């Protein structure tokens, strides 16, 4: 059996190289892997491509990585007016931004997860989102071609993991986490609780173990910013 449980946050992120493409789960303050982000930032990683709905709040969530100028490229749907450090870095041209509609961000990640090579959508047609993208008419509708978004790592947050990596999420802290878990080569999850194998009923597993590569229990920052 593969051993997925890591004894510390630092070990769980120890090998993520500079320049990595990393997905970060979370939405609206809920379901952010805040402790993994702290560990990653403290390690002094740089030149990250971050894929995330938003760009943090001040020092909170991803904000920390912008504060320390560790992100070069962002793919996001709603960076957020309160993402002060991100906005500063963007104004200083220290970070590049690709804005993606939120549902399309999900679908592009899911396409990568599902081994699809691209899809057509009406979302974004005629807007700046369509710039540089192939456009065609399908059954009378103008569509653009959207490409998969894959990542080297996904940092996600779950409520419980069993030792195999089956996950559950609490309430609306689910959000992007299950999608990102599927779309990265290596998925690292911080959880509130590690439970014995078999403790999660098979019908209630929300992310099957096949998508989870490293598990670490985090007692620390649950909500940030």
């Amino acid at each position, binding site marked *: 059996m593969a051993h997925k449980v890591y004894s510390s946050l630092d070990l769980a992120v120890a090998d993520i190289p500079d320049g990595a493409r990393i997905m970060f789960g979370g*939405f*609206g*303050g*809920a*379901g952010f892997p805040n402790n993994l982000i702290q560990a990653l930032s403290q390690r002094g990683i740089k030149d990250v491509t971050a894929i995330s*709905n*938003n*760009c943090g709040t001040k020092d909170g969530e991803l904000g920390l990585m912008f504060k320390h100028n560790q992100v070069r490229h962002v793919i*996001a*749907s*709603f*960076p*957020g*007016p309160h993402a002060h450090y*991100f*906005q500063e870095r*963007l*104004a200083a041209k220290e970070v590049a*931004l690709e*804005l*993606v*509609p*939120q*549902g*399309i961000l*999900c*679908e592009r*990640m*899911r396409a990568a997860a599902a081994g699809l090579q691209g899809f057509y*959508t*009406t*979302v*974004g*047609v*005629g*807007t*700046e*989102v369509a710039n540089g993208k192939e456009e065609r008419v399908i059954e009378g509708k*103008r569509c653009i071609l959207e490409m998969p978004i894959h990542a080297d790592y996904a940092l996600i947050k779950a409520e419980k993991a069993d030792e195999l990596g089956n996950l559950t*999420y*609490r*309430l*609306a*802290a*689910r*959000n*992007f*986490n*299950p*999608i990102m878990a599927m779309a990265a080569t290596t998925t690292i999850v911080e959880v509130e609780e590690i439970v014995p194998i078999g403790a999660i009923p098979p019908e209630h597993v*929300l992310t099957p173990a096949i998508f989870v590569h490293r598990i670490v229990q985090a007692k620390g920052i*649950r*909500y940030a910013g």
Partner: protein
Amino acid sequence: MPDKPRLTREQIAQRAALELPDGAYVNLGWGIPNLIADHLPKNVQVYFHSENGILGMGRRAKPGEEDLDLVDAMKVPVTLISGASFFHQADAHLMTRGGHLDVAVLGGFQVSEKGDLANWKVPGAKGSGGIGGAMDIAAGAKKLLVCMEHTTKEGAPKIVRQCTYPLTSLSCVDTVITDLAVIDVQPGGLMLREIAPGWSFDEVQKLTGAPLMTLGRPPEIKLD
């Protein structure tokens, strides 16, 4: 005209609430739309969808009742109604984009006479701007309402022939509810359906950047 009373933001929300049929699945966007939930008629039960993966959102959480894992798309702690469900964000937007929502209500900066919507970015504003779920919602809702003031703070029309602000989605708006009028986007143009009390068609037309049509004398905006 400037000192003639217009509908308040709460009244716009109150009017918009009447557009939600019993049993409808509904997504409410930022701004005025977010006030609608408080104005639902007593005999109407609608199911609120949030793009972070909730169906069956209830009222906002009271002080002491907040759970930070249970927030709406605006990061506001909310409650659930009985029969609610959670799902991941891809399924949440499968619902928005796939035509599963009966009604979505968004705020707007501009609406064109063809129903184009601009609501995510003010030209020249500082910062990155952000799209969020608006483009998926606008593209997919069975019925899209826009709630906004009829004119900008400077008095310029927000209903226009062609949007000059960055677009959210083309030909997506069905009805615009403002502090002066209820206007349907029809194939032939903009149909003024109701008008604010004390305002004439010509007065509203003057504050509108695209030609309005009307069938006879438009009735006053109903609020209940």
